[in-house]
Structure formats: C-alpha cells, structure tokens
C-alpha cells in the first residue's frame, strides 16, 4: 500500500479555513464528500464517528500531526485526506503543541488489516522530520501531492 493509495489528492485541503479541531474534521470530511470519494449521506455519520473517537483519546500525537479517524460502514477501502493549517489548531495534542497537518482516515470496519496498513504507510512517512516539515510548508494541492508521490518513491 502506498501513501498515494490512501490519500485522495483531489480532496487535499492546502489551507484549512477551520480554526478548531471539530471544524477541521468537518472540513476534511466535506472535502471527501465533495470530491465524490465519500457518499454524501455518510458524511454526518463520519463526522459523528470521528468526533467520538477523538473524544475518547486525542489523535494529536505530537510534532504538529493529528490523525482523526474512524471505521465506518459503507466504506469499502481506506480513504484519507490531509488538511494543512498554517496557524495551527488545538487538538489537545500529547505534546501540548498546535497541529499543522491533519490527516483524516476513514476505514472499513470489516477489514482491520487494511486499516493497519493505511496507518503503517502514513506513519512510516510522518515519522520523518523532513516529510513533516515539507508537509507543513506545501501550500497547494499540487505541492502536497508531489510530496506524497516523492515519499512513495523513496519507500
């Protein structure tokens, strides 16, 4: 599985309008729906599921990264997108710092292994300082998509 298989390029939001965690999640879900990747009728369910998960334990794992996610009936394979906030959003992150890259992931409840594969590929890249830095700097969909493709090439 490659990062480009999970992250839907057209749905990337290079500058989130949202200033809060919940709004950012909604904006990214909206982007998946608008781009035809997420059935529109599932959007409210996705919002509810992702927020429920977020309330259980923050997905702001530190270093400016958050991974809001949920498993949702009606999703066939993992679909994700990335939202960038140049100002930073409060996700109650583990390191107490703002989040600049929000990576939303929706998976099928029937395929736990695929969800883990998606998580693995995301974190393989996100763990790299340079990848996180460039992700934070990329301010267009094209720049972010290029970054993702380059990351996949590097392996």
């Amino acid at each position, binding site marked *: 599985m490659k990062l480009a298989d999970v992250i839907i390029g057209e749905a990337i939001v290079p500058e989130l309008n949202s200033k809060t965690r919940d709004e950012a999640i909604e904006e990214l879900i909206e982007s998946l729906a608008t781009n035809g990747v997420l059935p529109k009728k599932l959007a409210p369910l996705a919002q509810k599921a992702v927020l429920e998960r977020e309330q259980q334990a923050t*997905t702001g*794992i530190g270093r400016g990264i958050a991974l809001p996610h949920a498993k949702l009936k009606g999703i066939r394979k993992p679909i994700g997108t990335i939202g960038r906030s140049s100002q930073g959003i409060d996700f109650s992150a*583990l390191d107490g710092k703002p989040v600049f890259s929000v990576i939303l992931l929706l998976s099928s409840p029937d395929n*736990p292994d695929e*969800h*883990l594969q998606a*998580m*693995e590929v995301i*974190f393989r890249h996100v*763990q790299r300082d340079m990848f996180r830095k460039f992700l934070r700097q990329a301010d267009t969909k094209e720049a972010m998509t290029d970054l993702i493709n380059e990351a996949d090439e590097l392996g």
Partner: protein
Amino acid sequence: MATVETRVEIINKYGLHARPAMQLVETANRFSSKIELSNGTLAVDAKSIMSVMRLAGTKGTILIISADGADAQEAADAIVALVNDGFGEMDEG
C-alpha cells in the same frame, strides 16, 4: 541491570491500531529501562508514539519485546499483560 526479551501474540481483532499503540507507549514510558518492540521486520523504540504506530501489528502478529535496565522485567511484564488483555478490546466484535 538486566536485559529481558520476551514475545507475545497480538490477540485483539483490530491489532495494534492507534489507541492500543498509545496505551503501549504510555505503559512503556512508566519504566526507566530502554524498551524495544519488533514485529519481526521492524524494531522501534516503545516509548515513541510515532514509531510504535509504524508497527501496525495485525491480530496474530508476534511482538518481540526487549527491555534493558533496572526495571526491565517489570516493563516487559507490563507490556505482555497489556497485549494479552487485548488492550481492553476483547469484548468488542
């Protein structure tokens, strides 16, 4: 000082996804010992959340735990207990 190595199988349906990974990292950080986790292919620092999330161990994966330090045995035991408990998810479908 002691070095302890042990293995444990992941038994919960969703494996080592985000929430269990965080519980595992939290547990590891309670101990002073250096702790390493491996899924057979990749070895990571058990105290680093971004690293542990890369393990993404599926149900059935054998995790190899290596702990080195004064509380190595307690550290290994605590992690084994957490995994054997299915990270508290065994009631879920």
